[in-house]
């Protein structure tokens, strides 16, 4: 049989290890805000913040790029479309395009748009000054709204790229949920 002192030692050790396990469980959750902060500070995944305007950006008159616009909705009874399919322009020029959303339902719906770019690292050369994706959008029943996106493609864009795609997907925000842009 184990001596009483040994049993007490063992129980103390078990308590310490159990507390350590609980701390690690909490640590798993703590990684969520930690990653958000880390990405914010390091500028990773920073798709939903407006970029600063740059005055006198050099325009590369030598070449033309085509940007195509795409729009999707997921789980939302909305119509969502760009008013122009594509734009052709010189890198360095500031461009504004319009998107239109329509809520077909009889209730107010809140949505958040998430951008996606092709090619994958386009965000390094894309500066967006204004976008409906920077805030959540609340649409009244049957409301239609036209919203702008204002951006510039920097002349640093690699020269082998001619056609780029900017795509948005609208997701419905559950009631009470915080939008990405407000975090």
């Amino acid at each position, binding site marked *: *049989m*184990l001596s009483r002192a*040994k049993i007490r*030692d*063992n129980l103390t*050790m*078990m308590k310490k*290890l*159990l507390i*350590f*396990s*609980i*701390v*690690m*469980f*909490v*640590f*798993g*959750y703590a*990684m*969520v805000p930690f*990653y958000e902060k880390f990405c914010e500070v*390091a500028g*990773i*995944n920073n798709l939903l913040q407006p970029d600063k305007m740059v005055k006198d950006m050099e325009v590369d008159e030598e070449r033309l790029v085509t940007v195509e616009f795409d729009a999707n909705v*997921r*789980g939302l009874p909305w119509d969502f479309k760009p008013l122009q399919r594509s734009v052709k322009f010189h890198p360095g020029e500031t461009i504004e395009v319009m998107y239109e959303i329509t809520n077909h339902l009889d209730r107010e719906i809140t949505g*958040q748009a*998430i951008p996606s770019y092709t090619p*994958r690292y386009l965000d390094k050369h894309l500066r967006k000054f204004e976008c409906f994706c920077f805030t959540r959008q609340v649409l009244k029943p049957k409301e239609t709204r036209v919203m702008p996106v204002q951006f510039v493609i920097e002349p640093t864009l690699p020269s082998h790229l001619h056609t780029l795609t900017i795509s948005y997907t609208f*997701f*419905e*925000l*559950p009631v009470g*949920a*915080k*939008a*990405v842009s407000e*975090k």
Partner: protein
Amino acid sequence: MAAVHGDVHDHGHDDHHPTGISRWLTTTNHKDIGTMYLWFSLAMFFTGGFLAMGIRAELFQPGIQILEPELFNSFTTLHGLIMVFGAIMPAFVGFANWQVPMMIGAPDMAFARMNLWSFWLLPIAATLLVSSFFVPGGAAAGGWTFYPPLSTQGGLGVDMMIFAVHILGASSIMGAINIITTILNMRAPGMKLMDMPLFVWTWLITAYLLVLVMPVLAGTVTMLLTDRHFGTSFFNAAGGGDPVLFQHIFWFFGHPEVYIMILPSFGIVSEVIPTFSRKPLFGYSSMVYATASIAILSCVVWAHHMFTAGMPTVAQLFFMYATMLIAVPTGVKVFNWTATMWQGAMSFETPMLFAIGFIFLFVIGGFSGVICAIVPIDIQVQDTYYVIAHFHYVLVSGSLFALFAGAYYWIPKWTGRMYDEKLGKLHFWLSMIFFNLTFFVQHFLGLAGMPRRIPDYALQFADFNMISSIGAFGFGLSQVLFVYIMIKTIRSGEKAPEKPWDGATTLEWTHLPTPAPYHSFEKPPVFKPTVH
């Protein structure tokens, strides 16, 4: 390590215990629980093996023959989960239960009743996993890593998998707490930490890794569960979550997990090699430090599993170099094993064959691991059969071969009977040949671009896949031979001599009769360390 002294026949009295089924349901004896762990993991090994046979049968030829794609995905998912959490991990816990108390001169595990709990949680989790095949929507099919969004979609099968992982995690944490307490508090008087056999050392470090990362996995699956049912958005992009976040948290658990599955096998091999080389282990303390460094490094390399998920170049470089650094302590270990054999009076019984096979094949798996660590190559081989080949070389010919070595090495001590040496060697050679036939060709398939987790493939992959499938069927059948050998040993094996391995120096061989009595070391043994 420990010098032989004290009367070997000091124990062997007081062998009373309940008999029949109630012995097994209520036992808190570390040897009985160890036995149950081992039988359970063997059953799970064959369950996971059955799924593997299904996968290889489907991949025998191009086209869809026997498994619909959805079911095929469930097969690969459950094969991984069952082998990792049901077969390999519980098997090592089984070894720890049997061996740790005997090797440190303790009468039992520190918390005998908790031990009972951590075992009986396993069959519950296994039932959940296996029965999820028969619920509407079928078993989880998003891969054993259950990445969202696949795992936030999916039906009841995914919920059953999540609960199973919760239960398995709880069982592992309890087991780890038990093992740490046993090792730290219950060693024979005079046995310092640096006197412990390496199997005990590797398990101590493994158990610390378990309490470090299993709770994080529990947190991850809890987040998944609340995302699925309670409206949270940890991983759901629609609600502002991030699926890549899941990969980071999962692999923070997942990479230490692969070392949880390999460190105890380093321990077993470090017992077997000196015994059959009849020399003390070369570089004992460097072995301990190497094990500890591997464990620490394993916590800072997780993102090498997700080089293609998008990450700044600086981060890729950090994780690449940190990963390659692990090859250094691992190389120290391989060097020490080789140096132990150097000029030893070697003999090649089955445990030694499996241990040498382990070193040989584990090194191949280690090298392909270094290759996968290199970012540009990893981007090329990500999610291909090259990765499959890599981790089966470290998990099958690594962990599993070490488990076989341990089983043949200690079965005389456990049962008092010898296994059939001829059949044991046959089992080794069949496993060795069929294993390589199955997995070596998968390197070529992966380099040529065959993706994993797909039930069909392009025609140019047909020949290698057929070879691989034939190897897999052979490997599966060879394991039936293992069960036959073990049952034959237990029922009608020849009586084992008191000390069948003349080179063995640990307490269970020097201070206990064969077979080990039901209650051992109720009086702590006198332990005299020898110089390493």
